[in-house]
């Protein structure tokens, strides 16, 4: 007859099981103290683990997007800078057109000015950044603007052919003297202008596409982040500069030349305001990109906080737990030693 009975096996087993449990808890608590998050996130979060993985993934993705945005911003900065150079060139060209007097020297100076302006325009539009021609639309591996001064340049040939077809003689022909102001204006409006504003531009002058580079600047936001050399201002500027370069070498009479200079003056004026419009648009996109990056970085901050809330442990709580466990384990060791010493044999 026993009131309560305990077996020796149960006593020693209970001691060892408890110690084992404490030790495994200690190992977990130690990892949690050092890493700041749950020892086994999956077991701690269960069905919410997918959320933690998604947050991790989105943080990486948004960080990646901020990196790509800085690339986009660099391209936009380069574009803006190039456009500023073009407007500057156009403005100085315009003032040259405005002050130009009559006379041979003035004509030569103006012609040189036009040539300069055209060369600058060509070289700026052919700017490349990281191996991409930034004004080429999406066709970024091909130079967007053909060099007017190069041998056999298609734009130069097209212009020469058009002149010959319209007037029946070449530009250098002395017969050019006979061209009247009205004839000149008629030639400029009906023949030359369509060559620049119409589809001919893309066969003779430009290799750029109208479609510009689209970039994703935030998760659900895309923006057009480049400017095409096909935009109206460029065409007009190219037309004005190439006319002055070419036709001031032609033996025109004074009236025709004045008509020509007058026409190009208005054209350059229009070009400047068109390009400034483009600059304003680029400025807007620059703003959007930097806003988007700022929003992305805020989103990353929020997500990081969320992720911390989800899988993080309170380091103070965890280290307190470690201390408690250490104390418990020490007690358990002491107890084990004393209980094991406890034997009736010692008293017999």
């Amino acid at each position, binding site marked *: 007859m026993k009131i309560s009975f305990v077996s*020796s096996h149960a006593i020693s087993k209970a001691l060892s099981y408890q110690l084992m449990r404490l030790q495994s808890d200690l190992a977990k608590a130690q990892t949690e103290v050092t890493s700041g998050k749950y020892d086994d996130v999956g077991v701690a979060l269960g069905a919410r683990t997918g959320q933690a993985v998604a947050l991790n993934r989105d943080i990486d993705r948004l960080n990646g997007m901020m990196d790509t945005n800085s690339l986009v911003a660099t391209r936009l900065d380069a574009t803006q800078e190039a456009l500023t150079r073009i407007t500057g060139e156009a403005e100085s060209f315009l003032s040259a057109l405005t002050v130009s007097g009559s006379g041979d020297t003035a004509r030569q100076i103006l012609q040189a000015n036009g040539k300069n302006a055209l060369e600058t325009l060509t070289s700026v539009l052919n700017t490349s950044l990281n191996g991409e021609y930034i004004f080429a639309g999406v*066709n970024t591996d091909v130079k967007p603007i053909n060099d007017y001064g190069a041998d056999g340049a298609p734009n130069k040939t097209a212009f020469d052919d058009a002149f010959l077809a319209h007037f029946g003689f070449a530009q250098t022909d002395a017969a050019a003297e006979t061209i009247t102001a009205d004839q000149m204006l008629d030639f400029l409006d009906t023949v030359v202008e369509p060559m620049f504003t119409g589809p001919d531009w893309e066969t003779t002058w430009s290799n750029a596409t109208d479609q510009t580079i689209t*970039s994703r600047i935030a998760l659900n936001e895309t923006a057009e982040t480049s400017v095409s050399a096909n935009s109206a201002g460029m065409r007009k500027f190219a037309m004005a500069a190439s006319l002055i370069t070419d036709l001031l070498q032609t033996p025109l009479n004074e009236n025709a030349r004045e008509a020509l200079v007058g026409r190009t003056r208005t054209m350059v004026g229009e070009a400047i305001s068109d390009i400034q419009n483009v600059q304003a648009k680029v400025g807007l996109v620059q703003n959007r990109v930097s806003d988007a990056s700022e929003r992305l970085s805020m989103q990353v901050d929020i997500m990081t906080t969320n992720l911390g809330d989800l899988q993080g442990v309170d380091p103070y709580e965890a280290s307190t737990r470690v201390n408690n466990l250490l104390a418990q384990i020490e007690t358990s060791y002491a107890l084990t030693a004393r209980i094991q010493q406890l034997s009736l044999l010692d008293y017999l």
Partner: protein
Amino acid sequence: MSLTSALGIAQRSLLNTARQTSVVSQNITNAQNPDYSRRSAVLVSSAPGATALNIQRATNAALFRNNLAALSSYNAQSTLLAGIDNLTLQVNGVDNASSASTLIGKLQEALQSYATTPSNENLAENAVEAARQIANALNNGTDAIQTFRSQIDQDIAVSVVRLNDLLSQFEAANKTVIHATQAGTDASDALDKRDSLLKQISELVPISTISRGNNDVVITTTSGVTLFESIPRSVTFSPIQSYEATTVGNAIMIDGVPLGVGHGGNTSADGTLSAMLQLRDSVAVTMQGQLDEIARGLIVSFAETDPNGLLADQTGLFTWPGGPSLPPDATISAGLAGLIAINPAVDTASGGSVTLLRDGGINGPDYVANNSGGASFSDLLFVYSERLDTPIAFDPAAGLDANASITNFAGSAISWLELSRQQATDASEVKSALMLRTSEALSNETGVNIDEEMALLLDLEHSYEASARLIRAVDEMLSALLSAVQ
């Protein structure tokens, strides 16, 4: 009454004490043997004045039954947990680093940086490489799952052999018990052996026992199928050497009846066999289905569409042996995750061109989206990366959302697995506590306490001394008598 009878009683007392001492020493020897039940030698008066020793074995049928049930459920739970842990690690990697969900995120990043600088072929290679990582992870995941299934199958085969062996050992032990009981001799050792076998059997299958005359025992599973009655019933199982996604494993037949399969993270299975069936036929198969659906989702998300809307969609970046046509919608194509591959047309290693990813045209010129041929065309890349976030239909048989984006679906697959793991871990703690508690209670009820045995030993010493003293006293009396007679 005479001196001679006093001498006789004292002699018998010496004999009884000696036998009691041997029981005490046997108890002490087995103090740390969990399968040993404490014996006590009880003195019973048979005829007037005559006493006999009766060996009694401490038992508690109710606690023993509880312990068997707890053993069954704990073993099932720990088998399930170990299996799920193993699968999680092999398929999703440490911290889910090689999970489809994480890798799809990396692919999205790669697509984004490629789309920002589409003229850069290195970034194109990088995107294709990220895609290859996913395809590899899915292939490896499928391999891991199917290898796991075939390993489990082998484990089941081994366990079934062991179960049959245990049952035949049980037959021998049971026979010994019956004979000893019939002959009226001490059957304690055989009973210990039989209880220990029952414990081992219940680790494999949940059992209940019925006692019959002469201490004969019938074992049935808890669902009522006879495992042992006079002779062991046969437990049969034929393993399959290698598993594929479509392979259906064989059932374990006990006496011709198939053994039930457990379900749930806190498994309904009892005994390792049932839990192993659950791992092989439920957990691993569901995981495979989810991987297959992820593979299908990827193939569909990167499918090429005819810009003119005339031709049918065909496989793009990801393809499968059934390509270029797409796998059927919203249905698990069993084993697809093991077959998904990078389309050779975009793989430079196979002589393909990575730029087809940007321009379209993997399936010929009709599918080209970049008509101008510009090197900075990014629209198609945006389409792909948007499709990864657009909901598509999934097979509800995968056990996850039937309508979700591929990124969410892959995330849910992780949640599903980790939820099972969490449930299994929690349940395993509860069940192990119950198992420990019941074995402790059983041990306290039937085990040996050395101190008690020592105290008993002191009593026995006293009683031995007293009997010896008695014999000497009778001897002196007799010699006094004899010397008086001389």
